[in-house]
């Protein structure tokens, strides 16, 4: 501790980290503890910019303090201090400073309606638009007198789309007293289908068909004309029951025959889409059936189909890749038959049958993808892959427990003589152990739940909705209520955590400690 100065009565204390805090001065000067006389040359820009050079008495006072007591003081020199020491003028060129900044400042002044802080916050000076937007003078001028005279009138009109000459009225923009001419604007949207009409001779010559009578064909065409080829409606209105495909095929074949018959040469109508494509009724029925089947699929089926398709794709890819490698390729007809299936069901029928004929490597596990790609592999590698595939869903802790169980049973984690049978058995054993451990864990969880429910029935706390579902086996033990309840709850909570690593607690074990508590 250093002695106080004579005049000020202040104590300078050193901070531990070597920082000097001068009371009365709100600046902290870091750095080594050495005597420093401020060097006018070494002004730290950081310091001087952060705090504007204070021209007040504070700086002067600390300097005098340093000088008078001879105490080694570290001061990061500021320009003010330097000038003070050297006796230089504090304000350089004061007159010039006042004039110059004032001139450019004028246009940058903030608008009067905005407070200073808000102005600075919202971008301040940079907010001024570079381009004039809307000027008040423009607003006055804008409704200029137009060259033409525009008025709106309520006028009658007719539409060529209508057949009954109904006259309706609407607002019309009239320019220079000349009402607009022309058809109603929306009449152009009244498209109609060109349904051909055949004469009797044409019918006799080209259009007869064993399953269709003349009357039926006439009715069909009349309905087509009336309903604009909307076959769903036509099918509904058709007097005899005929499927949509049937009607469609009749219509298209008749029209096609008519077109070809009426044309002078075939080339004329060859471009006509009616002639180019024939309507395939069988394909249509199949497509609709498949679509409805797809639509009515359950979620399960959807997933299965996605899996099957992905598998087929993989097989196709692997076979395509291997086709170049092998000369006598493995039979490729199977996936080829499977893939370009029309509907969903043929595909699903093919692949399960192929999977059934292929002898699976292990009892009930499917071959992992990585193995499928390999043309040759080691049995141990295969086993590793299948073990990985099985335990992929289980966590790392479960895997360790399975390994531990295997070791406890005296089984090697990797069989020493990995034949096909041995590997299959090993895999099955692992699966069974995994199942066992999972069931054990579930059992523990259930038992913990039951215990927790029992305890919660003792406390007065209101049961949450989800708990009330499980109150089925809530035991009614009247002498336990209140007294032993709370303590027992605590005990059971503790038991719940430890129970995980021990054997699952039996109910009798749970009851006994509680009884002891009550007797206490």
């Amino acid at each position, binding site marked *: 501790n250093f002695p106080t100065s004579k005049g000020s009565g202040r104590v300078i204390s050193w901070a531990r980290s070597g920082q000097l805090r001068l009371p009365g001065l709100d600046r902290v000067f870091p750095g080594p503890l050495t005597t420093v006389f401020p060097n006018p040359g070494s002004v730290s820009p950081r310091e001087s910019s952060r705090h504007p050079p204070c021209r007040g008495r504070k700086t002067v006072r600390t300097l005098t303090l340093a000088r008078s007591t001879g105490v080694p003081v570290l001061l990061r020199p500021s320009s003010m201090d330097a000038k003070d020491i050297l006796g230089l003028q504090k304000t350089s060129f004061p007159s010039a400073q006042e004039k110059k900044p004032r001139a450019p400042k004028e246009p940058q002044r903030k608008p009067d309606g905005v407070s200073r802080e808000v102005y600075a916050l919202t971008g301040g000076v940079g907010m001024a638009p570079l381009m004039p937007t809307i000027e008040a003078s423009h607003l006055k001028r804008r409704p200029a007198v137009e060259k033409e005279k525009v008025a709106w009138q309520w006028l009658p009109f007719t539409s060529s789309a209508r057949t009954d000459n109904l006259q309706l009225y609407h607002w019309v923009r009239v320019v220079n007293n000349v009402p607009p001419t022309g058809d109603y604007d929306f009449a152009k949207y009244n498209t109609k289908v060109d349904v051909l009409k055949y004469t009797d001779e044409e019918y006799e010559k080209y259009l007869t068909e064993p399953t269709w009578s003349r009357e039926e064909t006439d009715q069909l065409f009349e309905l087509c004309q009336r309903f604009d080829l909307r076959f769903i409606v036509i099918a509904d209105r058709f007097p005899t029951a005929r499927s949509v495909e049937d009607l469609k095929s009749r219509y298209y074949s008749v029209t096609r025959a008519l077109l070809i018959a009426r044309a002078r040469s075939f080339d004329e109508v060859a471009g006509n889409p009616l002639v180019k494509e024939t309507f395939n009724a069988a394909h249509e029925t199949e497509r609709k059936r498949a679509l409805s089947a797809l639509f009515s699929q359950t979620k399960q089926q959807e997933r299965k189909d996605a899996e099957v398709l992905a598998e087929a794709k993989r097989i196709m890819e692997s076979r395509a890749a291997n086709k170049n490698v092998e000369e*006598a390729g493995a039979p490729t007809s199977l996936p080829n038959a499977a893939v370009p299936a029309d509907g969903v069901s043929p595909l699903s029928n093919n692949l399960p049958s192929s999977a059934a004929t292929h002898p699976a490597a292990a009892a009930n596990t499917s071959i992992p993808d990585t193995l499928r790609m390999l043309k*040759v592999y080691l049995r*141990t590698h295969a086993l590793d892959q299948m073990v990985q595939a099985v335990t992929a869903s289980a966590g790392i802790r479960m895997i360790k427990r399975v390994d531990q169980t295997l070791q406890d049973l005296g089984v090697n984690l990797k069989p020493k003589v990995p034949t096909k049978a041995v590997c299959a058995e090993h895999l099955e054993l692992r699966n069974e152990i995994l199942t066992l451990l999972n069931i054990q864990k579930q059992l523990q969880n259930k038992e913990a739940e039951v215990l927790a429910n029992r305890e919660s029935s003792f406390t007065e706390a209101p049961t949450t909705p989800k708990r009330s579902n499980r109150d089925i086996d809530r035991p009614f033990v009247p002498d336990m209520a209140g007294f032993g309840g709370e303590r027992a709850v605590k005990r059971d909570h503790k038991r719940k955590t430890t129970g995980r690593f021990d054997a699952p607690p039996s109910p009798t074990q749970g009851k006994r400690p509680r009884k002891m508590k009550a007797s206490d």
Partner: protein
Amino acid sequence: NSHKWTVYIRSATNEDLSVIVKRVVFQLHPSFTNPTRVVEQPPFELSESGWGEFEIAITLYFHSDVCEKRLDLFHQLKLYPEEDAGPQSTKKPVVVETYDEVVFPEPTEAFFLRVQNHPAATVPRLPPGMTLSSPGMWLAGLYFLFS
């Protein structure tokens, strides 16, 4: 040069593997001269002398109608026996053998016919009613043993 050792690929019952294996390449430690040793005929083994224990990379190349791809294996060369085996004897060699099976999930028909009755390969029995000539069928996997 204190230790002589041999690394080999052998069938479990010492059958001739050349029906399946075309050649074996042993990749030794780089401190050996010509660390890549190729063995084209049976017996597929390699003898050397040296002191260190290292990992030998063994690559099996099969005949073209067997499999185009090669198979890589690794073997850790052990010169010294386990800790508790007692004093070493120059009479008794240290044998470290690993058993494994090479599986060909989709063998070609030619290969299948060739090795069907060869003792080196084990062919699972085909399910009854299946003949080789019917298309769209998955052939059972073949495997042979080595150590």
